[in-house]
């Protein structure tokens, strides 16, 4: 006599499915995932795990956390990161020390694989959530991540 129980279960499961989509239908105005993009340009926030471009955050004293260890440069599979560094005398200790001059990032070559960010031991670089990355000239895609005159945040190397 599984015939009638089959029918009962079929109807029940169909109704379950319909209740799920029915809930979606009722909530679609508020919960719609569609973004009406150019209209909401000012308010549109990308979600946290979105990979826009690599940036180096600086604090209010124009200090970053990059020690110039070049691990990101080594980790990058297609050479999107170049670090220009030299040895300078540290004013505090008076010793010679490796310091970055320019952290160069080629956005045009980057595949957003996130290996550099995982490799960074001091969390100096991270993903930005901006998404309007197109430019009219590809030279604009080569970016210097550390701001001019910035220096290493004290205490990062300890």
């Amino acid at each position, binding site marked *: 006599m599984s015939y009638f129980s089959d*029918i009962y279960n079929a109807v029940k499961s169909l109704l379950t*499915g319909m209740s799920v*989509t029915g809930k*979606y239908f009722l909530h*679609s105005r508020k919960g*719609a*995932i*569609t973004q009406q993009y150019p209209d909401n340009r000012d308010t549109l926030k990308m979600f946290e795990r979105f990979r826009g471009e690599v940036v180096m955050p600086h604090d209010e004293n124009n200090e970053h956390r990059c020690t110039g260890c070049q691990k990101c440069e080594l980790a990058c599979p297609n050479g999107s990161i170049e670090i220009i560094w030299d040895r300078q005398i540290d004013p505090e200790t008076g010793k010679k020390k490796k310091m970055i001059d320019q952290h160069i990032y080629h956005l045009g070559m980057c595949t957003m694989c996130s290996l550099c960010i995982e490799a960074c031991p001091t969390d100096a670089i991270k993903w930005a959530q901006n998404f309007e990355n197109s430019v009219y000239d590809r030279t604009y895609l080569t970016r210097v991540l550390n701001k001019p005159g910035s220096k290493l945040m004290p205490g990062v190397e300890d």
Partner: protein
Amino acid sequence: MNITKNIHEWLFSLMPEATASIVEMVLIAIVYLLIFAVAGLYLVLLERRVAAWFQLRLGPNRVGYQGLLQTMADALKLVSKELTVTIKADKFLYNLAPYFVIVTALMALSLFPFSKEFQAFDINIGIFFLTSISSIGVIGILLAGWSSNNKFSLIGAMRSGVQTISYELSVGLSLLTMVVMTGSLQLSQIVEVQKSGWIIIQGHIPAIIAFCIYMIAGTAETNRAPFDLVEAESELGAGFHTEYSGMKFAYFFLAEFINMFIIAAIATTIFFGAYLSPFGITESIPLLGVFWFLAKTLVLIFLMMWFRWTFPRLRIDQLLVLEWKYLLPLNLMNLVLMALMVLLGLTIKF
């Protein structure tokens, strides 16, 4: 309706009786064509918006207010497109097929009692006519698939044949169950019976079972998801209309939506009292009948859209199992139950 009466008298005073009646028929046909071309377009829009809402999207809302002109623009685009034909296609049948589909869909529309006066064609075998007309439409689909000379089209068309032949049975039987109660095939007569309670209330249990079966089989008749293995985008390209382009494709597309309207309108007429208002609240204003009819039909159309955007597509063997092992035996049992009920006078009447 006073306007129609005036036009009728004016026409008959202007010319001899035979010509006048022909002119009148042509006028009515044009009115119906216009109404349902527009209605079909807006059903397409409704489907797209409802589909979007079911999937937490917004749907087309840019062309006109809330996208109201979207399908008009689409239709204009389709009219302006080239009509392509494959080299080895059977040209005559290939060109004939879309008209078969659309004409049968439009023919069925003439029978519905939109209000007490607004019914173009009230014959005494109404339901029988409707079911037979709706099964002629499948010939158009078969012709389209056959004449395209494309294996996917042919498979789609053959599936359509199998599907329609099977599910026609359930549609017919579930309507027959109701005919047992009303005692008439004429649509106006059926509405007359429902003045003492809609049939779904009068016939209670068997009527509800018949309604469920009718909606399942009716969805299958229109070749919509979850029974859309005629088109089956993922396996057959677009099924029987793979080779069609431009306006001929639009005819198939429009016919699908008008067929959906027809299925919902039959259900409205048979089960939900056509133009009768709930509890007779607006019986004094006959013009509101059109509103009630369309409101009920739209609710049923929404139900079919709900099916479409919820259930996965059936396989061909599952489709046949559903019909022959479940719907048909249930339907026959239901018919006997209904006959017993009518015999014992167990129907509810107000």
